[in-house]
Every structure is written in structure tokens, then in C-alpha cells.
């Protein structure tokens, strides 16, 4: 049963004219969709799976149904990667985000294929992949610029040098948009890591294929393992653990479910993790990208140091 349905989907690809495949005697190799934790591709520790389908009811794949334990493992991995990633030169982060865009560009066809399996028209799928690539380029450029825009040297009245700079918050747990399964995913990950954070992302439940393939892109992009960790599964099961976890610094939620939003804000109080709802953002438009998304997951640190004050009074900046 399962085999036939997947064969059908590969047939539908050729119908769409993307690839000319002859169904000869060769058996097609199917992809196992696994999750991405700490730079590795494990299956969920729970051994569970679910089968998302397209609008016509066609099975997409057997996808890992990640558990709370997977999430905890991913947070441990992400925490371990914070100091290395945030300690890299902003310029280096910029180059790595650019490299991610390069890799994504190179695998465009596969993403278009997957988006089409998940009900997108060819034109729409192509547009989404192009936008996703461009979004990575956009944030690659921001990596070493947003600090200059949002920092300040503060003219304090006393004889001190005083400046404020943005710093990454740490580990950010993200529940990605359900629609725009590739563009939405890229749009929430890119600003978070551009700012030096690491993250754990729960991909679209209904359209998870691109997220796993995107993890493969990350894996070949010089991005250190564990900076981005991607889980597949159900927000309804995992959302509360995302906000319960005491070693998560911020949470992003992209759906307009007021019950879940309320629950998340309530639970975020446990360790006062920052919480952001991106439920009104139209990711395919210009409002889907801005340095203000980077700034959401930044803390402002202010540093003071005295200035020797011998020759004149009140020396400062």
C-alpha cells in the first residue's frame, strides 16, 4: 500500500514535467525522513512516526513523530553550540548563511519537487524556493550590520565610557509556520542564527518534507552541527514542552491559535523566557524580513568604564 502510493507521487512529478523518469525495471530508492539533532540525523528516540498526506489524501512519507525527549536532546545540543556560534566573528556567520543559500540554490529542484508533492503549483513552488534562497542572502548580509544599527554609545553625564550592544539570547525554540513550509522555516531560522543564537525548530506538521531536506542543506553548509536542530512532529504535543523547558531562552510561535498562545505565555513565566508570536506575518512579502526579527532575540548589554579625568572635568563621550 505504502509503496504504491509513493510511486504514484513520483509519477506525479513527471506529470508536472520536472523530471522525465521512466518507470523501468529499476526500483526507486525512497528517502527516509529523519530529524536533525546536533548535526546528526537520528530517528526519533520514541520510535514513533506519522504519515502526513497531501490534499488528495496521498501519503507523503513516514515522518518522525518527535517526542519530548527528542526536544530535550535537541536543547542540550543547541545549548552546547551557543558559545561557539555566538563567539564566531559576525563576518564568519555571514559567510555561512551565504553558503546555506548557495547549497539551497543547488538543490532547488528537490525542494520544488517536495513543495509540489505538498500541493503547491509549480509556479508557486518555484517562487517559494527562490524567496527562501533570497531570504538567506538577505540575512547573510545583516549578520555583521545590525549591531551597528542598534548599538549606541551613550553620552552619560559622568566621566565614563558607556556603550550598549545587542547580544544573542542563547537557545531559541521555534514552532515554524504550518504553511509556507520552506519559506516560513527559513524566515524564522535565519534571523535567529544571524544574531548568534542557536535553535530548535519544530517543522510544519502537515508539510514536513522540505524541513528535513533543508537540514541536509544545513549539514553541507559549514554551519556547525547543533546550531540549528530540526524536529518533525505535532505542535499540539510539543508546544507546551517548548515553553516548559528551563534552559530555553526564547520561544517563537507562528500560528494564530489563541489558546496555545495563552498557554505559552503563561508557561513562559517559569523562567521568564522571551516569547514572540509571529502569527500575522506574511512571509512571502517584504514584511517577512527585517532586522527587527533579528533584534527580537537579542538582549541589550550596557557596559561602563571610567575615563581618567585629570586634565579636564567631566570627560566623556
Amino acid at each position, binding site marked *: 500500500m505504502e509503496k504504491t502510493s509513493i510511486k504514484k507521487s513520483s509519477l506525479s512529478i513527471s506529470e508536472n514535467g520536472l523530471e522525465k523518469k521512466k518507470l523501468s525495471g529499476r526500483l526507486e530508492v525512497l528517502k527516509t525522513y529523519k530529524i536533525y539533532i546536533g548535526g546528526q540525523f537520528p530517528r526519533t528516540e520514541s520510535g514513533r512516526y506519522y504519515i502526513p498526506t497531501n490534499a488528495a489524501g496521498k501519503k507523503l512519507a513516514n515522518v518522525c513523530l518527535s517526542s519530548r525527549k527528542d526536544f530535550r536532546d535537541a536543547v542540550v545540543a543547541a545549548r552546547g553550540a551557543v558559545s561557539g556560534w555566538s563567539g564566531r566573528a559576525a563576518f564568519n556567520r555571514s559567510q555561512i548563511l551565504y553558503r546555506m543559500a548557495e547549497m539551497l540554490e543547488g538543490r532547488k529542484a528537490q525542494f520544488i519537487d517536495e513543495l509540489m508533492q505538498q500541493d503547491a503549483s509549480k509556479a508557486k513552488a518555484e517562487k517559494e524556493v527562490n524567496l527562501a534562497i533570497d531570504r538567506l542572502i538577505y540575512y547573510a548580509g545583516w549578520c555583521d550590520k545590525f549591531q551597528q544599527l542598534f548599538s*549606541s554609545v*551613550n553620552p*552619560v553625564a559622568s566621566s565614563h565610557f*558607556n556603550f550598549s550592544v545587542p547580544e544573542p*539570547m542563547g537557545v531559541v525554540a521555534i514552532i515554524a509556520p504550518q504553511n509556507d513550509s520552506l519559506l516560513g522555516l527559513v524566515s524564522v531560522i535565519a534571523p535567529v542564527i544571524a544574531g548568534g543564537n542557536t535553535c530548535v525548530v519544530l517543522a510544519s506538521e502537515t508539510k514536513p518534507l522540505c524541513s528535513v531536506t533543508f537540514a541536509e542543506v544545513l549539514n553541507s553548509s559549514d554551519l556547525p552541527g547543533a546550531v540549528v536542530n530540526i524536529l518533525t512532529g505535532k505542535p499540539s504535543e510539543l508546544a507546551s514542552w517548548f515553553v516548559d523547558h528551563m534552559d530555553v531562552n526564547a520561544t517563537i510561535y507562528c500560528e494564530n491559535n489563541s489558546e496555545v498562545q495563552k498557554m505559552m505565555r*503563561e508557561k513562559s513565566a517559569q523562567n*521568564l523566557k522571551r516569547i514572540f508570536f509571529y502569527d500575522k506575518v506574511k512571509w512571502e512579502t517584504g514584511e517577512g524580513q527585517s532586522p527587527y526579527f533579528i533584534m527580537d532575540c537579542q538582549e541589550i548589554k550596557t557596559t*561602563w568604564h*571610567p575615563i581618567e579625568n585629570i586634565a579636564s572635568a567631566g570627560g566623556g563621550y
Partner: protein
Amino acid sequence: MATKKKIAKSNTIKLKFDTSWSYAPAPESKSAATINKQYDLFINGEWQKPSGNKYFDTINPATEEKLSEIAEASTADVDKAVKAARAAYEKVWKKMPAKERAKYIFRIARMIQEKARELAIIESLDGGKPIRESRDFDVPTAANHFFYYAGWADKLEYAFPNRTTEPLGVAGQIIPWNFPLLMAAWKIAPAIATGNTVVLKPAETTSLTALKLAEIIQESGLPPGVVNIITGAGATGAAIVNHPDINKIAFTGSTDVGKIIQRAIAGTNKKATLELGGKAANIIFEDAPIDQAVEGVINGIYFNQGHVCCAGSRLYVQESVAKEVIRKLKDRLESLIVGDPLDKNTDIGAINSKGQLETIHKYLDIGKKEGAEMYQSSCPVPNKGFWCRPTMFTNVAQSNRIAQEEIFGPVLSVLTFRTDDEVIEKANNSPYGLSAGVWTDKGSKIFNMTRRMRAGVVWANTFNKFDPSSPFGGYKESGFGREGGLHGLSAYVNVV
């Protein structure tokens, strides 16, 4: 090297202020301040009786004498204040040209300066803090804060690149008792400069200067309802937090209450900024100028009786200089003048309330039980009022409660370390992240440390410095949002 150290040691003179120096009393006069017998609620530009007709006493914590009676605002009074603020927002304040808004705020700043002496006396009478701090820090910094934000009112389009801003609406603001007037300024000035209107509640033990500020605001001609100041305790605060027509909650206080507020506003569209507790690490490296560092540590923890959320309550001293630092700290502790807050020579005033004194005593017991060594100044303290001698614990372990929990009193915990990595690990091992300090003569080490410490404000070779242009606020469980400076504007605007 060893001989050098010996010489350095013998050069240190033990300070004996008690015998070689003495200070004659130098009390500030109470007559320069007017305190009414009773204060009502400041709503819609007028003084209004509380609906329940209930009043509570406010006392001088240095003498336990009653200073005045303060109205207790009920839920109905909160509602009245929010309605006034809403009407002022919709009909007047939102529409007023920003440059006119600015001029009202400049005027308030000036009037605080004019009445600075009176405000300082009342601050010390009502809160117990030394007049020197009220006079030289609290009151001028409060005036400066209004002055700083006044100028932002008509320049907001420069503050957020490529964006415009709009005010949020009505802000509910709840402030603590440690810097009563200054916290009112930190809350009100940016809120009204950005076009919001305000309902502010001071802490129940220290309402007087906020009510004096209400008088100033009334005198300034600020349109009625733009700033409403209502008094009361926790129940009044809860009524503000839960009022459905409030758009933003700004709270400064304990982390516990901050968490309650975050839960309470879940499911609403209320925005929040929370400025909560702290347990700041103050780190002394062996190459630091030790005498300056000791002064900085003293200022860091004993400033305002230690009732400071960013107080440097955890001292980390590099092992090689620990003995010397501890000895000098003890000497300095002994020379601190504890007593009458109105005396201009006083270093440490009264503990703000009986309740807070009990909390501090509880932690002194905990510290002793945990096996730390307690050292207190031998200074005399007055019989009446609430007093705590400046206290220092040595032999403190990282896991001790006195090294983990906020005491909010003049109590220092001293710990030691050997390496940079170790002290960073220890300093960041705290749910809090409000402030931190580092003392070293080496520039590259300063930046290494200030970068790695997870705290919103980091003082290097200084401590407890504040300025209206300098953003203040915490990481982690010390809350979120910034107050002061350019970054403090974000708390009160929608960026569109």
C-alpha cells in the same frame, strides 16, 4: 616578589575613623518639606477620595513615627483612573503635537529641580535612605530622566531605522520602594514622551514622593488624566494588571511578582516590561587596583542599604588577593556610618520596612546555618526603627542560598576563584542576569569578562552607576525590556 608583597602589606594603614576622626551631627532640616496629614488619589488631574474611604499609615522607618495617611485605591478607583487615562489618551495626548508634549515633560523636569531639596528630605524620611543619596542621586537623576525623555518626544522617527512608531495607549505602571521617585521618573517619562498615558502605583511603604510628583504634575498644567497616581498595596497592583483596558504593564519589583504578572496577562494583548531581581557577581582579579576595588564593592552592596536590584551581592575574589581584600573590606565596613538618614554624614540608613528587616534576618540565619562565617560592623544602631549593620559572609559556597537568592539588604557574600573560566562559570551560574562587575587593570581581560558575563549592565572598574541615557535591564529571570536611553523607547511604542 614575596618581599614586595610584604612591604605592600605593611604600608596598609588600618583605618581608625572611630578614634582619630569624629563627625558632629549634621542633620538636614525637616522644615524644608511639607507633608500633608492625608493624601488622596491623583486621578484625572484632581485629588479624589478613595471609594472605600480607606487609608493606611506611612511611617518613617528610622523612627517608626507616622508621617501621613495614604489612600487605598480599590478596583473601582483603578477603573476610574484607567478611564481617565484612556480619555486623556484618545482626546488629548495622542493628538497633541509631539513638540508640545515635550515641553510639558521639560517643565516637569524643571519643577522637580526647583523642589529638589524638599523631595530629597521626604524621600529619606519615608524610605530611610541617607539624605546624601536622596539629594545627590535619587532626585537629580529623576529630574534628568524627565529632561532626557522630553527631548525624544518629537524625534521618535530617528530612533527606529526605516520604521515609524505609534504609542501603545494606557500604561499601567507598578514601582518598588527602593528608589521611589526615581522609579516613578523611569516609568512615567518615556511613557508620556512617546504619547501614552499612565496609571502609576508606588509601593505602599513609600508613596510620598510619588504623591509629591503628582502635585508637581498638577502644577505643571499637564492635561488631566495623562498621568494618574494611585496608591495601595498588592491588591491595587493586581487590579491594574488585570484591568482589561490597559495596553501595557511596566513593573519593577521581585521576580516572583514579575512571574505572576506574566501569567496574569497571558491571553491578553498587553505588552510588558519587567525589571526584576538580581544577584550580581562582582569580580576582583589579582591585578586590580585593590583599594579602588574595595571602595567599589562597598558602594556596590551597601549603597541604599543594599535595597538595590543590581546590587553587587556576590563578590568573587581571586584567591591570591582574597585575604587582603577581605581584611580591607572588614576595615571599611567598620568605618561606615550607620544611622539617622537625614544626617548628611550617614552612609547607611534605615531598612525600608519591618517586613524587609525580617527577610534580611532570615537570610543571616540561613547563612550561618549553611556554615558561612558572618562578619558585622560593630557600629551602634538606634533603638527605634529598622536597622541592620553592614554584614559580610566569607567562606560562602556557590550552592549556598546566600549566594543564590536575592536578599535585598546590606549583606555581601564573598567567594573565591582561581581562573577566568572558573569565575565566568560561577558568575553566570544564577537564574538572574541583571548586572555584573569586574575589577582588573588589564583592558583585554575587561572586554573578555564583560562580553562573557550574562547580564544587562556590566560595570568595569566601577559599580552602581546610572544615567538617563544608559539602558538598564536584565537577562534571564531578571526580566525583560530596557529602561533608559534610546533602547528604553521600545518599551512604549509599536514599531510599524
